[in-house]
């Protein structure tokens, strides 16, 4: 059959040995829990390191993008979203409050715009390009002009620190990381990386919120001569039984235990009076007298439309 011209095993009788090979040669002897520990910490470590380093790079790059360029880039992003249903007088009154605080940031290169979003959850957002969005729910919740001014000042602080750009950059970075993990590792790995990544992001978010608080407080103190009312919103939201409204506001504005205390400490350190007369909200800004919109706010956003 073959051309080697050598004795083949066909030519003679053979002994058969029925022994079985040693068990376990083809399986790596490693305790699965050890493997699990190494891998889980590996994935967490790599994700945290990657997300954090993207965060630092973004924090370093974002402030060097000129606001003018940012405005140009995002100028038409949020234009179309302005809901026609928003009562014009309310937007104008809001605009007036914004002007009162933004005056104290004279070297701003933004041309700020306000939008009122028809949502029952109290929230406010700084959007790329210089747009501040405030929800109907937030306007319904505030009780004094000082309170609202601080919210707007806080959002101005985000623009001042370029947090909206940093958030955008980190979001893109995070998606890239999760995308890579998703291709490589699939479901479980992606979930684990998402949790680790979000916790890392939260650290950045917290620092940003504190910095924005400080900036906003400075504007409020400059305008009213005191900082009374600045932390009223947190107290309201905490006092209200509507837990989901709080959850909604905190999801973008994490409340790290002592935010109110921190605000007071900042004010004290800067020598801003903690007490003073709160200015009343103008009648145009006040919550509509219809009680139904106050008692059942965030639970079902659809019902308010």
């Amino acid at each position: 059959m073959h051309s080697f011209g050598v004795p083949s095993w066909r030519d003679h009788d053979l002994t058969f040995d029925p022994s079985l090979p040693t068990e376990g040669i083809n399986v790596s002897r490693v305790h699965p829990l050890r493997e699990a520990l190494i891998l889980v910490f590996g994935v967490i470590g790599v994700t945290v390191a990657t997300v954090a380093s993207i965060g630092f790079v973004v924090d370093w790059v974002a402030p060097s993008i000129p606001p003018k360029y940012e405005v140009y880039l995002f100028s038409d992003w949020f234009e179309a979203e302005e809901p026609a249903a928003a009562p014009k007088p309310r937007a104008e009154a809001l605009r007036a409050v914004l002007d009162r605080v933004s005056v104290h940031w004279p070297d701003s290169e933004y041309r700020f715009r306000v939008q009122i979003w028809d949502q029952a959850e109290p929230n406010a957002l700084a959007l790329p390009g210089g747009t501040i969005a405030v929800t109907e729910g937030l306007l319904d919740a505030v009780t004094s002009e000082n309170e609202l001014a601080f919210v707007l000042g806080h959002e101005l602080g985000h623009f001042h620190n370029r947090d909206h750009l940093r958030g955008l950059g980190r979001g893109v970075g995070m998606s890239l990381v999760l995308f890579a993990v998703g291709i490589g590792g699939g479901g479980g790995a992606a979930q684990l990386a998402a949790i680790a990544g979000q916790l890392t992001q939260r650290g950045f978010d917290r620092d940003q919120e504190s910095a924005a608080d400080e900036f906003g407080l400075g504007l409020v103190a400059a305008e009213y001569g005191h900082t009374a009312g600045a932390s009223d919103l947190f107290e309201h939201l905490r006092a209200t039984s509507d837990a989901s409204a709080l959850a909604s506001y905190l999801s973008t504005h994490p409340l790290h235990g002592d935010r109110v205390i921190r605000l007071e400490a900042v004010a004290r350190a800067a020598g801003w009076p903690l007490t003073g007369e709160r200015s009343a909200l103008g009648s145009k800004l006040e919550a509509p007298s219809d009680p139904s919109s106050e008692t059942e706010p965030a639970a079902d956003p659809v019902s308010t439309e």
Partner: protein
Amino acid sequence: MEDAMGIAVLQVGIPLALLLLGYFVGGAVERRHYASIQERELRWRSLPAVNFRTVPGGWIVDDATLVLGNVVISVDYFKRFLAGLRMLFGGRVKVYESLMDRARREALVRLKVETVERGYHALVNVRMETSQLASGRGGSGVAGIEVLAYGTALKLRTPPT
């Protein structure tokens, strides 16, 4: 807030429960399977099985036929999760090695049982084929593995001892 907590508990709790289920039940299933494989390998080990195509010189063959043995098995959730993580770093996927080992040996032992039950005495030209069934998304999708072992069963005038 309670809603958010509830969702978080579900998001973490369900996979965690599945991991525990996979680790404990999956581990027990594997140990039982190995015990069964070892027992049957020992019982049928006196049946010669080689991957030669030719027949030893001393054997007088009366009859020959094609026989097959196959098995499809899958890993537990815990191992699939670990394998998914391993795909990120690359390298040896230890948790899948036992899967392949079990599948191979199971298919081979079934091939031997088939041979004996049909009244044959030896196997030559044993081959093995592996295929992956129904792949899901990513490494954690599905690891349903089929191993097919096949060979030519020989009926010998004087069975080997």
